């Protein structure tokens, strides 16, 4: 039993240095200036406005707009990119925020900030 246990400890030690994509999964409350949104922007958004389901560098964003509109997103480093959304991922996993811009077709980009709901972010 000693050899497998030592091997497992070696694996765990080796894995500690491996970086993983930044976590964005969970529910997010969104703060943006509604006056800045034009007619083509999402309407009827309720808080938490975003739900993000993440698997590694791939994510699925679901809007809480009554239609459960979804969009695919990718995470590269500290940047989250989707079709009309680009955001920087800021802070540690327990206190993470998204800061960026939403660019709807035919609208001027709108700055936004989103805060992850702490109680929901890891199945607690």
């Amino acid at each position, binding site marked *: 039993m000693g050899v497998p246990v030592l091997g497992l400890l070696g694996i*765990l030690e080796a*894995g*500690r240095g*491996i970086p993983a994509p*930044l*976590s964005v999964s969970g529910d997010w409350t969104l703060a943006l200036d509604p006056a800045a949104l034009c007619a083509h922007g999402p309407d009827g958004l309720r808080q938490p406005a975003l739900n993000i389901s993440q698997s590694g560098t791939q994510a699925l964003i679901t809007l809480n707009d009554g239609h459960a509109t979804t969009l*695919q997103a990718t995470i590269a480093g500290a940047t989250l990119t989707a079709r009309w959304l680009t955001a920087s991922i800021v802070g540690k996993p327990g206190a993470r925020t998204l800061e960026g811009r939403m660019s709807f077709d035919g609208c001027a980009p709108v700055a936004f900030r989103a805060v992850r709901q702490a109680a929901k972010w890891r*199945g*607690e």
Partner: protein
Amino acid sequence: MPNLFHLVLQIAVILVAARVVGFLFQKIRQPQVMGEMVAGILLGPSLLGWLAPGVFAALFPAATLGYLNALSQVGLVVFMFVVGLALDPSELHGYGHAAVLTSHVSIVAPFCLGGVTALYLYPRLSDDAVTFTGFALFMGAAMSITAFPVLARILTERGLLRTRMGTMAIACAAVDDVTGWCILAYIVVLVRVTHAARPAWVTMAGSLAYVLVMLFVVRRILPAFERQFRKRDRLSDNLIAVIVVLVLASALATEWLGIHLLFGAFLMGAIMPKTPEFTHYLLHKFESVTVVLLLPLFFAFTGLRTRIGVGGGGAIWWYSAIVIVVAITGKLGGSMFAARLAGTPWREAASLGILMNTRGLMELVILNIGLDIGVISPAMFSIMVLMALVTTFMTTPLLEWVYPTRLFKAPVDEIHKNVA
């Protein structure tokens, strides 16, 4: 009452799908439960949601799934009690070196290979909210599980249960089950403690106290039920209700401690008196409603969370292939070589490996826990569900090929002189 309407409709559709697909799978000599698991996947986004998104959205609106989840969780609590109830520690004695070595290697080999696989998959399918330690240990535990109930069912359906190889497989699977659940309990505590407000020592000390109370207090009270059963050859409804309450109380205790509902239910079943008549009576009482009604709901809920081939591109199939190969190599290969090393003939050693590779619904239970506590991502969950289906599906045909029915004539009595 739109939600009640949806719930009843969902249950009806799930039951019909489970019975029909289960029947079809029996026709190709697969266990009924295999078909029920596949039915759950077919009702989810992997097939129904992909082929008919409108029907899928109308049948399973997101807002109604909480009720389905709650029902399936209650079903799992009862099912885990049944699994613990069917587990007889006396089966672990008397199988000698071969069973001990095989059961240990069948845990250690896939566990270590799961850890190595985690080195590759962690940066690709996890995120920084999960520690590598938690991810790797979970992968190891998920790779090393054997589906004790499905295994027993396959052995029974093929008439292998009372053969030398069948009894040894049951003994090894029982050891694997207990060890696997202990490892998983540790992982759940490890992951939850990282994020929980409760200090780790409360969980640790509480868990120890809980186990001691169950083993040395509750276990001594339980034979009273058996005595009542012997008097009347049955238990009154009130006594059955008391047993249910004890199961729920045990489940609540482990949930409160931060382990999981299911561990408490399993332990309550495991410490119940094990005389065959009493166990059979309770299994009969609890099994039918659980197996026919509640487990299909769990399979469907699992299917609703599974997105095989949806998103992630071709890489997901590559990761799936790696996980399946590693799972089979570790479990089937590890068990087979350990049994052979202990002197079991090649054919029986290979059959034992094939049987131990059956992951079935126990794997689905563990994966759902992993997804709930956030230690695996949705894509990793789907990959592991696919692995569970493949490893379970391959058991029957592979077993028939390696160990045809005509060959298993050695009675169980020979076991001691052959493998001890």
